[in-house]
């Protein structure tokens, strides 16, 4: 076709396509809620809840401190020593009020166990009870903690993971803790960032999993070699090994990971376990940094890695979180994995792995719907948790983020992207990494609180509901801190304060909670599932022994019910396989339920 007219039309269409990214951006922005902070009443009216940071008023003035590692890492110290802030919820003295355990990571620093005073305040009792002074030079520093009653005496015991020697503390009826590490036979050194309790073989005794990050032969304070960094940014397999400790029932554990099929040297940062296939056995999800995620189907005796088969282990990213949630009230879990997104440099996008229609059991497959659901871009994302923050009957998502906040105006991203694209011989050696020189790396990031509309869309309301901090967030735990029927949020920040966001929820929206105690199952009831049926819908939740990033939510299960709920029943499936049905449980109450004999 000749002539000027077609050329002009072509040029106009071309310009349209060139500027189309700007139009798409504008259209996408319209979907976002206004970034302005709302007052309590407006937020309540508009979103049904409001979060107020109350840590100081609650007597919690904990500030995380980072470790100082081998001097040969000085030039990149802020990014290497960038983890260790963790939070886990436990009612260690069984007084019916949740307490908070937080880790510190500077050599010689103290961890804290905040005992709930029932009056809105907390008192640190870690020192008194013997779980504070755990970061002594030579023994490594804390990276996380998870609680589980391994001897079924009714009191939650403490598993502490470190870049260093892992520790197990027996809870002495809430009056103190006894270090039992040596009796248990834990390894002398693991550079671990994730651990969880679960009863993988259904014998009624809690076992535990620990995922290594750096290789266990690396002492980060006394490096034998600076070649200890990942050998690839996306395919690294030179990380720490994985451990599965099988509970033998006499206060001893046996390490069985290789025996049961868990052989991996990927760089694990997060793990979570839940029964994804309805087999009665908890499956294990591991989010790995510098590589693909791993999903292990558990047949009760052995684990089978099915990451690629199920779709979650195909595209390598920088996994930093693993949490489960029945986000569509369908009785099936989606998995949320956080990754890195930095405008103009690296857009990995977070993953929301939703079960594919028509796939169940061993044929289970997932598809990543993070973009469709609106929970994809979260900056340098770390810990995230699902929970019904406004009690409207659907699970919302709280995500914290931010990697290294130093100089506001200088970014390390250019140098980071340069080295990350290099060959393994270059990237693997810390001495080849350019010096950070006080520059930030995805620092000062705004957090995300995504509100679920129940039909597959999440809207970010963080700023509007009062989440305005920009610390380098790591761990998030959801807990009804003051037994009010709402989920409060506790956030552990790297080199930053522990934040307690007290939740105020519109009273119109109702709730129900379940506190489970196993008898033939493990007493912590970790792995027990509650499916709640109300108003023609149902939602499943499972008691967790650790999920998210370096965190553990409260063990009790919290369901929002929305307005005017007609609760039909709650079906409890215990780890022992027993099923129990509670007919018409009353909303607005915590139901304490013991496993029937």
């Amino acid at each position, binding site marked *: 076709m000749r002539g000027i007219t077609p050329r002009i039309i072509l040029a106009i269409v*071309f310009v349209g396509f060139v500027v189309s990214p700007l139009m798409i951006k504008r259209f996408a922005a319209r979907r976002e809620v206004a970034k302005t902070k709302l007052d309590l009443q407006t937020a309540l009216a508009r979103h049904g809840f409001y979060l107020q940071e109350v840590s100081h008023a609650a007597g919690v003035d904990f500030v995380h401190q980072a470790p100082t590692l081998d001097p040969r890492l000085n030039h990149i110290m802020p990014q290497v020593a960038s983890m260790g802030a963790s939070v886990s919820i436990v009612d260690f003295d069984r007084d019916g009020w949740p307490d908070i355990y937080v880790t510190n990571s500077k050599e010689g620093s103290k961890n804290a166990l905040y005992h709930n005073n029932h009056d809105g305040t907390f008192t640190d009792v870690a020192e008194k009870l013997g779980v504070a002074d755990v970061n002594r030079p030579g023994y490594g520093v804390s990276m996380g903690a998870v609680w589980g009653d391994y001897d079924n005496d009714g009191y939650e015991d403490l598993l502490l993971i470190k870049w260093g020697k892992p520790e197990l503390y027996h809870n002495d009826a809430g009056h103190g803790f006894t270090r039992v590490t040596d009796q248990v036979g834990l390894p002398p050194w693991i550079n671990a960032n994730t651990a969880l309790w679960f009863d993988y073989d259904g014998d009624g005794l809690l076992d535990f999993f620990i995922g290594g990050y750096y290789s266990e032969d690396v002492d980060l304070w006394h490096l034998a070699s600076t070649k200890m960094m990942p050998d690839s940014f996306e395919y690294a397999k030179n990380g720490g090994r994985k451990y599965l400790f099988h509970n033998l029932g006499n206060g001893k554990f046996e390490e069985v990971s290789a025996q049961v099929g868990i052989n991996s040297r990927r760089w694990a940062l997060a793990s979570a376990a839940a029964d994804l296939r309805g087999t009665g056995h908890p499956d294990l999800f591991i989010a790995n940094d510098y590589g693909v995620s791993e999903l292990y189907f558990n047949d009760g005796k052995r684990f089978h890695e099915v990451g690629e088969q199920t779709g979650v282990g195909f595209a390598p990213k920088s996994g930093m979180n693993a949490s489960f949630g029945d986000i569509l009230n369908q009785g099936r879990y989606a998995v949320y994995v956080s990754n890195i997104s930095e*405008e103009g440099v690296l857009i990995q996008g977070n993953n929301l792995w939703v079960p594919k229609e028509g796939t169940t059991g061993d044929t289970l497959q997932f598809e990543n719907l*993070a973009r469709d659901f609106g929970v994809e*871009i979260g900056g340098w994302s770390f810990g995230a948790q699902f929970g019904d923050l406004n009690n409207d009957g659907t699970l919302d998502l709280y995500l914290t983020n931010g990697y290294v906040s130093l100089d506001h105006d200088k970014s390390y991203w250019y140098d980071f992207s340069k080295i990350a694209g290099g060959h393994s011989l*270059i990237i693997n050696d810390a001495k080849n990494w*350019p010096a950070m020189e006080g520059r930030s790396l995805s620092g000062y990031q705004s957090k995300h609180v995504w509100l679920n509309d129940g039909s597959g869309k999440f809207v970010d309301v963080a700023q509007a509901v009062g989440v305005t901090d920009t610390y380098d967030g790591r761990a998030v735990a959801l807990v009804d801190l003051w037994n009010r029927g709402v989920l409060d949020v506790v956030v552990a920040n790297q080199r930053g304060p522990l934040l307690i966001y007290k939740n105020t929820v519109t009273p119109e929206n109702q709730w129900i909670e379940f506190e489970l105690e196993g008898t033939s199952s493990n007493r912590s009831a970790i792995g027990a599932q509650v499916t709640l049926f109300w108003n023609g819908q149902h939602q499943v939740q499972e008691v967790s022994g650790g999920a998210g990033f370096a965190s553990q939510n409260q063990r009790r299960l919290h369901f929002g019910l929305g307005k005017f709920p007609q609760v039909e029943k709650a079906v409890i499936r215990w780890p022992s396989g027993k099923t129990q049905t509670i007919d018409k449980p009353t909303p607005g109450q915590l139901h304490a339920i013991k496993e029937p004999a």
Partner: protein
Amino acid sequence: MSQPAASIAIPPTQQFSWKRFFSPDNRYLAPAFITCILLAGHLSFGILESYKKTGLAIIASLVTELILGRIFTGKWPNIASAYITGISVGILVRSPAFWPYVICSIVSIMSKYVLRLKGRHIWNPSNFGISVLLFLAPETVATLSIQWGNYLLPMIVIWCLGSVIVWRVRRFHITATYVTCFIAFAFLRSYITGSPWQSEIAPLTGPMYQLFIFFMITDPKTTVRSKFWQCVVAALIALVEMILRLDQVVYAPFYALFLVGPIAFLIGMWFDSRKAVPLRATA
């Protein structure tokens, strides 16, 4: 990207021979090579987020080429070049969304038909498309920065095969000049910034650069004619890239080619017109 050289396709009735396959006249050599890279990378390391995105990029590229070629030349165009553009977009663009793959391919191919001078397109198509997207949609789009495992063997294979191919299509001098200059400038940058020289060399060892040096800067339609000036242009691209890198521009190579390529092309045309020597026809 478009193919490093193109003239006459091998008649399909002829018997296959490796010599002919590696002939500079084989316009399917580059598409075959880039397809091998894609398949090897994906099957061994899962480099693609999904087949769908790469498929979308290729289809969008082919369809755009077919439509525009038919409308503006009156005949069905050869799609080898569009295939390379599509597959390059599929590999180099990294985005969780689908639309960037479509838009980038369409913009890349359209640029060949819109941004033209004296019958020749000014920009390397995929370089134009990717640069536009990186500039206008940084919140959604990045490029390939780390793939195929950072392991040595795949890198050596790609370097060897790529070198053989660009040598056979008589473009090796461009690649060699650029790589030599990049290394020299890397040491200079290291001296200026104090960064370890290994970190300055590092990008060159990644797969993005392998595609860049074998397919983008060797694009015959956007470089000047003489061998000497082609080397000068390659050196200039490396120089501009160094300047951009000193300013910490992450996508320095794309922007350097985006800036230098058309300028060199225009200057080359100007020189040619002054000498009244007709440009060598390219397919």
